[in-house]
């Protein structure tokens, strides 16, 4: 079981790097979606037993994180027909280097925290931190509003990974609530992005700096 989980998490880490390295908007969204699918699987594996509840949660995760949310974002990209590139403040190579650095730091940081033995053995905690930091990088270095949502999604994915250590403690209601919140958040952001596009004919956040001191 631990090996399978690690395998899935390695996949998650890999997707982080792909996301930092890609220059294409749609690809980034797809990577985030794939991460969502992997998380659904990881949740199933982490529980270690197949109850109806676990099954439902995994399916819901895959459905929302893997399918519904990416499709909202993809719909938003349809609006922007001309410039579909990611416009970073920090170059792709530099982003990759930073991502690697972040992953390394996550490994070090998770060592410094006292983990239970069963969690020390697997990649859960470092993968969580690494994904979190990747999300942060995407949030702060990518110019388009839509990439920021992708970053936020990745950030949430990182936290979700950490949640795998607490599968016993987190009640069903909370798990579903978190998922729903995320979905609604992206849904609302999607609507706002729609309006941004309508108002400014662009999704670049450069237009969103009129409110200032």
């Amino acid at each position: 079981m631990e090996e399978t989980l690690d395998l899935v998490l390695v996949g998650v880490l890999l997707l982080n790097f792909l996301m930092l390295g890609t220059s294409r908007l749609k690809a980034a969204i797809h990577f985030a979606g794939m991460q969502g699918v992997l998380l659904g699987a990881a949740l199933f594996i982490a529980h270690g037993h197949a109850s109806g509840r676990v099954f439902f949660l995994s399916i819901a995760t895959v459905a929302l994180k893997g399918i519904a949310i990416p499709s909202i974002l993809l719909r938003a990209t349809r609006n922007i027909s001309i410039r579909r590139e990611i416009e970073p403040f920090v170059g792709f190579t530099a982003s990759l280097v930073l991502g690697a650095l972040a992953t390394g730091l996550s490994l070090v940081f998770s060592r410094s925290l006292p983990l239970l033995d069963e969690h020390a053995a697997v990649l859960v905690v470092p993968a969580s931190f690494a994904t979190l930091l990747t999300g942060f990088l995407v949030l702060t270095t990518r110019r388009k509003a839509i990439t920021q949502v992708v970053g936020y999604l990745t950030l949430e994915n990182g936290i979700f990974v950490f949640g795998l250590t607490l599968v016993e403690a987190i009640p069903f209601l909370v798990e579903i609530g978190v998922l729903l919140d995320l979905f609604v958040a992206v849904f609302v952001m999607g609507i706002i992005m729609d309006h941004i596009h309508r108002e400014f004919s662009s999704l670049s956040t450069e237009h969103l700096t009129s409110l200032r001191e």
Partner: protein
Amino acid sequence: MLAFSGGGDELAFAAGFPGGALAVGLDPLSAVFLLPVAVLTAACGVYSLAYFPAADHPREAPRLRVSFGLSSAGLIVVLLARHSLVFLAGWEVMAIAAFFAVTAEDRDREVREAGFLYLVSTRASALCLLALFALHSAATGSFGLTPIGVGVVAPGIQSALFVLALVGFGLKAGLVPLHVWLPPAHAAAPTHVSALLSGVLIKSGIYGIVRVVSLLPDARPWWGEALLVAGVVSAVLGVAYALAQHDVKRLLAYHSVENIGIIAIGLGVALICRSTGRLDTAALALGGALLHVVNHALFKGLLFLGAGAVIQRTGTRSLDALGGIAAAMPATAIFFLVGAVAIVGLPPLNGFVSELLIYSGLLRVVASGAGEVWLLAALSAPALALVGGLALACFAKVVGSVFLGAPRHRSVSRGKDAPAAMLAPMAALACLCAAIGVVPFAFAPALAAASAVALRAPLASLDAPFAAISIVSLAALALCAAVGLALRARLARAPLEAAGTWDCGYAEPSARMQYSASSFAEPLVRVFSFALLPSVYSPRLTPIFPGPAAFHSEVVDAALDRILMPVVRAFADFARRLRVLQQGSVHAYLLYVWLALIALLAVTGATE
């Protein structure tokens, strides 16, 4: 009046506060301060009916009436409060209502700016008091303003309380260099509000200092010394600045700074004597200070009301534009003259009595020669004399340039004096000034009782030569009257010839050639230029046929324009540069969140 005779009553009612019962009370100390409040509020209230009629100011007058009354009421609450929250509430009601009274004519930019400066100062003062009372309640475990027993509060805390009181109340009273708000606010306010402000409101600061010191059991000598030095500096600089003013209301305001300084000198001497155990001298000096509080309310109120009558008539506050008004407004001129003689501290009026008591305190400290503190008193007494001389020069200038000589202002033609509603309050105040000057002993018991409360000492009568003062005053009045009558009788028989003023042979003298107020003050301003830093705009005259040119000199307030404003500007500049951090970039904002997280985690990591 009730409280002068006996001990104070206390009234308490319970309320849902963490602080417990809210108490008010009246004791002789409160009563001494209450008296001028009542008199001046009434006088200014009557005066305002004619000075600021609702018919001429439909928008401002109702608001002004309310705020005027509220500030007076707040002051009364302050004087009666025996609970720090009640005190603070009264304090702020007074201060904020006074703000609205000062800014009654808020369409004028100058008024708004002055009002804002006042508002900020009063807030700074209130926050000092907040700290004061918070520390007090933390140290004593109670919000009650009752004397603290010996040994309850550590000496260091007591000193901290004193310093907070000195700064907080000093801001309100206008001790230099905390006086910056005072001149502009007085100039901006409607004149009867200036009278109230200067006459009684700023005295709440004095009351606060006296009250707080009366609560503390162990007075240190340096408290009194600090107060004495602050008083001397305020008095000298206040009057020096006053001398350099061209605006009659600013001038009177600076005289308030001076008089507050004189009061502080008395308080300082009293505190020094209290800490060294010479209670009779302390009572004498404190009695003088308290009497000066009352006196200043009377004569400064009188002067402001008189000035207001002139301003209403002529529409200008500039001394250099006035002159010869005595002919048109004889009654106002006489009342103003009475106020001027009183504020300079000359016999036979009330200012002389209180200054004499304060001098007596100083001289007794010198005479006793105890420790090293006598030297401070020995240097302060001549400083007080200098202040007296400067005040004399200053009021000679005001009286001379406003009321005497020939009119410089077109609108001053022969006409009617101010209306009765304005003259009657002035007359009442002038009579009170004379009464205290001629029969000071009538007021001695009240002063003694108040001093006893403030000094935490048993009641004893003041050891002051009130009878001799009476004799000198009466003799001066009687002799002047006798000689004056004799002269009049003699002149009635003498050949009298009217002529133009002798101008040393110049053929065509005009009113504009009179010695102006600025010129009058020039020699003294020059002497004090090291402190006043006057800016002089003097034209260069070409040798043959010079064109029209004007000479102008101006003295700005050093504490405000050379110290405070640069600091404020520097801070505002710094704040403006910080705005770079918030330029609308959501990326930067997200970065701040992360930086905060990292910083806090680092702090956490470091503490483990």
